[in-house]
């Protein structure tokens, strides 16, 4: 008996009809698409987007040129050169991140002893010509200045897990 039903199931393409019933059902299901520019998916405070360099409240830049981030970067996206400033501290004269190489792993942020290099929540940045996505120190500092409030809040929210 079972053999007979199996025979008919095979030749009446029963399983194909079953599959089509499944897709047919989903045809009428509620769609889950998020219409991006108008709607956005929620972001966590650990979101790793565009990089920024932070400053202390005094206005002094945080980065001390230890090059830990350059060493840890798996994509070799960071380039740092340092020099001694007049006040005797070591500072970077050059701090470049090639965002075309960057894989947004967040290791630079993890390795930084002074929380200077951070990744922000910004994801909708773009470049219009070659080289636009090669971020230099002033550009990174500018991003940091602009979004300092959000960055500080995210760091504070993450602090208890560190």
């Amino acid at each position, binding site marked *: 008996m079972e053999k007979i039903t199996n025979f008919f199931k095979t030749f009446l393409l029963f399983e*194909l009809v079953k599959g*089509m019933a*499944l*897709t*047919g059902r*989903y*045809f009428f299901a509620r769609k889950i*698409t998020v219409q991006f520019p108008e709607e956005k998916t929620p972001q966590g405070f650990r979101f790793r987007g565009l990089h920024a360099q932070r400053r202390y409240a005094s206005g002094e830049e945080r980065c001390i040129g230890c090059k830990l981030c350059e060493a840890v970067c798996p994509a070799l996206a960071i380039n740092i050169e340092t020099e001694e400033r007049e006040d005797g501290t070591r500072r970077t004269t050059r701090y470049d991140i090639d965002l075309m190489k960057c894989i947004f792993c967040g290791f630079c942020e993890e390795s930084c002893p002074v929380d200077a290099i951070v990744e922000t929540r910004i994801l909708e940045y773009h470049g219009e010509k070659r080289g636009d996505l090669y971020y230099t120190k002033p550009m990174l500092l500018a991003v940091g200045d602009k979004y300092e409030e959000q960055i500080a809040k995210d760091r504070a929210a993450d602090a208890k897990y560190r």
Partner: protein
Amino acid sequence: MMELLQAIEQMGQSLLGVAWVPVWTLVKIVAIVAPLMIGIAYLTLAERKVIGYMQVRIGPNRVGYYGLLQPLADGIKLMFKEIIIPTGSNRFLFVVAPVLALMPALAAWAVVPFADGMVLANVNAGLLYILAMTSLGVYGIIIAGWASNSKYAFLGAMRSAAQIVSYEIAMGFALVCVLMAAQSMNLGDIVHGQQGKAGLFGWYFIPLFPMFLVYLIAGVAETNRAPFDMAEGESEIVAGFHVEYSGMAFALFFLAEYANMILIAALTSIMFLGGWLPPFDVAPFNWLPGLFWMLAKMSFVLFLFLWFRATFPRYRYDQLMRLGWKVFIPLTLIWVVVVGAWMQTRFWLW
């Protein structure tokens, strides 16, 4: 409507004389091809929408209201793209191949009736003509694959040629059953053969149900659509026979594929689903014109095509060949004999 057409014809005859016939034929051809092209354009949109909906997405909706201008945007984009001719390719054949792909797909429409008498060429051997034309479509693919001077294109062309030639046989035998049932090869007469009091139950998909399935599946295979899109197989051979094509040359292959889909849909509705006949020959149904029923049936079959694509994974090549040669061809051969015997008995009601 008919009087208007007759009036136009008389006026044209008196105005142009002998030259009227080619002119009028040209007008008819444009009247078939122009809506067909628009149909193709919107079939691509429908495909993206339907597959999107089945994948719980919403498909294109940014260009125009509900994405209605999307095909137009795609067309303009393709038109302005550069056609790159690869080095080492055969220039002439490379350019001719897309034309050879599209030509038979359009030529076959000459004998397709859209409603009673609404046909460009009412020839007796219509079914044979259609078979001959659809069998020519493979040339575009095989020449494109060879002329591209590329491994992937060549592999795609080889697969596709073998696939189309094998499924053509099953398709042909399925059609033999139809013409046995209708006792005619004229597509109009085949539809007339399905006419009767029974309406829906007089259509050939009931006595020839296995042939209906075989024809539908072989039709999907003939047009290289998923799950039989071995020729394209984007996950294994990049894009198959049209890897090297860009711009309008690529667009012609695209047009040919979709024109073939619509053709198969039209033929399925004519031969198995009663063409322009309404499902029941009673009041609310036969108010609508035959053209409406024809288009409705075509849309249904096209929706099935898209539904298949959204549901089934691609066949493996040896399984595809097995299905064609070891399942379909024996099945159709047996059914030809069965139908022949059945027609000699009193139980043949169609």
